[in-house]
């Protein structure tokens, strides 16, 4: 953060002025080293307008970085409805919020450990299921055919429908007895019509299925972009050498796709981990305990029981869990982008 704010400083450009001063005897100093400090700054900014970074730099600092720090501070304070407004003066209680979050169930009867479990299973399972689907989907439209444009457009639909709409449709589709899931399962005699998808332990699976339906095109998009990046000549060379379809897959496609897919799986897991909307909209409020993912747990602690200290502690725990994948993601992105 500190490094960011000093970016626009005038000293960023060119050699330091004192060297210019010493050399001044023999030849005139370069244009950008003449004049007062202010003049130099103005001239520098005209040639290299680094001030243009300021709005974004300030915005990111004020509305993202500072709030993240404040979350950490809040997690160490004793906060409730009355102390929240003057949270700067709230009593410091160390790690008590963390202890409470881990040991005591929230108003919905879910402990933090249980929420972590649910979030992990939910996000990793979704990624594991959507990855092969996305790859197959990309393979199926990689080669143009009549109507492939339409198929590509349809593939995008589950992904582009807003999550809150998907959640509402799922709420009705999984409705007990009257939704089309129960009706089809009942008609096929696979399950009882009264499966109760939206309450109790089945709710988790209803949410899981919905998330998979809605997000597989993410991997598909990445895989397709990766496929299109493979030069055609590679395939042609391979087919001249008489490579079979399997050999083409193994030696040309998978090595090229590997990096994109690893990054995609990481991103997708990060994304599912933070999905608040699906569980919040799909079920009645408050949602059943089996879908209580970390964001839901933090939200209801904060805005139902107004336990902001515990909610912040949960948010901090979430961030700590995400540090490793976030670090890998940042590194991978930095490398692929060449510094």
């Amino acid at each position, binding site marked *: 953060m500190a490094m*960011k704010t000093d970016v626009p400083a005038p000293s960023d450009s060119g050699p330091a002025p004192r060297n210019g001063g010493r050399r001044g005897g023999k030849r005139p100093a370069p244009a950008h080293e003449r004049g007062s400090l202010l003049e130099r700054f103005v001239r520098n900014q005209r040639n290299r307008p680094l001030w243009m970074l300021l709005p974004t730099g300030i915005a990111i600092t004020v509305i993202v970085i500072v709030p993240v720090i404040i979350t950490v501070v809040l997690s160490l304070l004793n906060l409730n409805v009355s102390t929240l407004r003057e949270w700067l003066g709230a009593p410091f209680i160390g790690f008590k919020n963390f202890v409470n979050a881990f040991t005591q169930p929230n108003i919905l009867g879910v402990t933090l450990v249980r929420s972590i479990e649910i979030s992990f299973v939910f996000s990793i399972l979704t990624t594991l299921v959507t990855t092969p689907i996305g790859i197959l989907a990309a393979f199926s439209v990689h080669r*143009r055919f009549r109507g492939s444009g339409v198929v590509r457009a349809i593939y995008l639909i589950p992904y582009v429908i807003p999550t809150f709409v998907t959640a*509402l449709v799922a709420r009705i589709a999984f409705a007990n007895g*009257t*939704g089309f899931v129960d009706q089809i399962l009942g008609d096929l005699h696979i399950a009882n019509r009264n499966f109760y998808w939206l309450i109790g332990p089945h709710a988790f699976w209803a949410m899981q299925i919905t998330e998979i*339906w809605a997000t597989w095109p993410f991997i598909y*998009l990445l895989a397709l972009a990766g496929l299109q990046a493979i030069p055609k000549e590679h395939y042609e060379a391979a087919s001249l050498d008489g490579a079979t379809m399997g050999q083409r897959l193994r030696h040309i496609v998978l090595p090229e796709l590997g990096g994109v897919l690893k990054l995609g799986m990481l991103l997708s897991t990060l994304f599912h981990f933070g999905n608040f909307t699906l569980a919040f909209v799909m079920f009645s409020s408050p949602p059943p305990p089996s879908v209580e993912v970390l964001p839901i747990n933090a939200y209801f602690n904060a805005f139902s029981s107004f336990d902001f200290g515990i909610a912040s502690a949960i948010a901090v725990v979430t961030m700590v869990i995400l540090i490793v994948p976030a670090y890998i993601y940042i590194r991978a992105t930095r490398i692929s982008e060449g510094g």
Partner: protein
Amino acid sequence: MSVTASAAAGARRGAGRRRTGSRTTPGSAAEQLMPRWLTRSVAGVLVVVSVVPVLYMIVLSFTPNQNVALGTISLAQLTISNYTSMWSAAPLAAGLVHTLVIAGASALLSVSFGLLAAYPLTRFKFRGRAPFMTVLIGVQTVPGTTLVLPLFAVLSWIQTTLSTQFIGTYWAIIVTYMTFGVPLSTWLLVAYLRTIPRDLEEAALVDGCTRFGALRRIVLPLTVPALVVAFVFAFLVGWNDVLFASVFTNSSTQTLAIVVQRFANNSAASLPVYGELMSAAVVSSAPVVFLYLAFQRYLVNGLSAGSLTGV
């Protein structure tokens, strides 16, 4: 929420080396990756799976409330009345206006900020450039719930200190959406500006154009497509959000997503009005789907195109 944008980051690696490729010409047999029967069955299954829930939503949106509640849906009873009655059942029109104002304003601000920052980030080498870029990527991994709590605490503290109302106003929610919009659009525009050759500007500079003149006359016109893409993505963040809107809006600013979500919770109570709820759902998603499909080639390519060349 911002995954679409992150797709840009992910796909960045390879794309562009060959952007034309199979997009314009039919693929040759050498490019075939699966037997034809498998290709066809995969495409068939996925198309059906993708379309059925959407058709279900559309059929329900034309079905009377009580039939949806009882699960007795028949194509003979379809009616358009949900689409006329829903506007009085919930404040949908107001929600639509609020969403347009909020998402539009935050997207406009985000894209302006992003364009300003992307230019020096792609044109100059300076101390702090690398950390700036790292922070830009890093903040995109911060989950929404980690931001909603402190923003609420800070805003309610400001309210108490200045004794004004801030939470519930347009500004509160516009600022919170910029937490996603600014890094997102900066990132997209950095990826795009990198593909615009510097020679163009340098030629203009030699011809006596100022830095700013070159930016305005040369770079800006070429960047319009990327600006549109960045605007659309930043706009959709606001359109799709529920978390921030449920905390920072009140009845005079609530967005369409919140109106629809509350409508669902209220209508579950006694007499379910799920038919009207589904017509509201269709109205909430149709613009987004059309926007994406209209920009489809643009978005997918624009997303993945960005990066690479400058590397």
